[in-house]
């Protein structure tokens, strides 16, 4: 189709000068609302909706105490996912980038979380009436970085041989862990009693709605991942589209999660920003369809429109036939043909 034809086609579509039929818009909208309500209520009665209870730090520390303590030590010694994350939580790394575009770094750290201080030391300091624990914390903080690393590394290695005692306590083989073993035992007990969930929630005031610290702590351990794997919600399982149980999920995220399954997105350290860039471009493309050559002319090339408007075209043909019979066209003048 030539550009001139496309412009003519476009202009012809501006107004409709043909016939109209009576139509009740409000009635149609009311019927549509009734239909949707019936469908929604029907689906509710048939299937309800999923509601799998949250994990808590309390439940995590009780059911998987070794995993909890291992994660806590990694937060303390800076080897956890959070500790090395970078912006917006800390400066441990520069965050993801595409070429010279370092959006994460440019926007910086604005949810500052010091993993060791905020997830381990501060909650331990808040435990009241345990002077031996406070002494242990002071001893840890006063030690050199090298000494601290020696203790935490030894303790982490020992956790590979840990056993769980009655009441959910964690025992490790004897070794030189300094104050770390005391601190971890207290943190575990605090978590198992439910105190750590609250301690990580409250900030400087009574009312709290921000679960960032508790969620990041749990995300560094296995508690959420193990449940997600069981429900096929992991990234490599196209999990972004999925819902818990056998419910339909977020089907509209199909293209977004698709990119994560293929290279280079699936193996790149900058996979997230790459996928976001591709999706931003495609989303812009969707919005600008009317301006994109090729994309805007596809509906004409693949004529599904002939099916949609088949009644209209048939009525045109019958009008043309009647008109041709009543008013036969003279042959085109020589200067107009060809």
């Amino acid at each position, binding site marked *: 189709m030539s550009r001139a034809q496309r412009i003519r086609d476009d202009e012809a579509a501006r107004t409709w000068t043909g*016939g109209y039929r009576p139509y009740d818009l409000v009635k149609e909208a009311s019927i549509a609302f009734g239909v949707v309500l019936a469908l929604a209520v029907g689906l509710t009665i048939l299937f309800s909706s*999923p509601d799998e209870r949250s994990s808590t730090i309390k439940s995590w520390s009780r059911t998987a105490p070794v995993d909890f303590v291992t994660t806590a030590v990694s937060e303390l010694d800076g080897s956890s996912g959070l500790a090395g994350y970078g912006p917006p939580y800390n400066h441990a790394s520069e965050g993801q980038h595409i070429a010279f575009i370092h959006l994460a770094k440019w926007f910086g750290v604005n949810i500052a979380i010091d993993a060791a201080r905020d997830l381990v030391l501060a909650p331990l300091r808040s435990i009241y009436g345990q002077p031996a624990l406070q002494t242990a914390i002071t001893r840890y903080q006063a030690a050199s970085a090298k000494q601290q690393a020696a203790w935490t590394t030894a303790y982490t290695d020992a956790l590979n041989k840990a056993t769980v005692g009655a009441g959910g306590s964690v025992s490790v083989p004897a070794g030189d862990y300094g104050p770390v073993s005391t601190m971890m035992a207290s943190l575990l007990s605090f978590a198992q009693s439910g105190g750590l969930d609250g301690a990580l929630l409250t900030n400087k005031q009574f009312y709290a709605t921000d679960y960032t610290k508790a969620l990041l702590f749990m995300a560094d351990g296995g508690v959420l991942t193990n449940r997600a794997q069981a*429900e096929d919600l992991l990234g490599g399982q196209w999990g972004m589209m999925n819902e818990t149980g056998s*419910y339909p999920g977020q089907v509209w995220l199909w293209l977004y999660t698709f990119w994560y399954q293929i290279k280079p997105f699936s193996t790149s350290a900058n996979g997230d920003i790459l996928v976001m860039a591709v999706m931003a471009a495609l989303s812009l493309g969707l919005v600008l369809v009317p301006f994109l050559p090729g994309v805007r002319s596809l509906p004409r090339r693949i004529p599904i429109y002939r*099916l949609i408007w088949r009644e209209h075209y048939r009525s045109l043909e019958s009008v043309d036939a009647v008109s041709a019979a009543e008013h036969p066209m003279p042959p085109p003048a020589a200067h107009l043909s060809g």
Partner: protein
Amino acid sequence: MAAAIFNLNHHAGFIHWHFIQLSVPNVIAIVLMLLVFAAAILAPFPGGRRSGGAS
């Protein structure tokens, strides 16, 4: 809690094809969309011939 008629709180089935892995409920939703789209276009519309006609 009032129970649903069909309890969907169990592990979903999955369809695997090469690297594509989709849950059965999601596949049902996608297939339904395609079928409904096709049906909407192909199904006859009542009163389609009753019209003032083109000019």
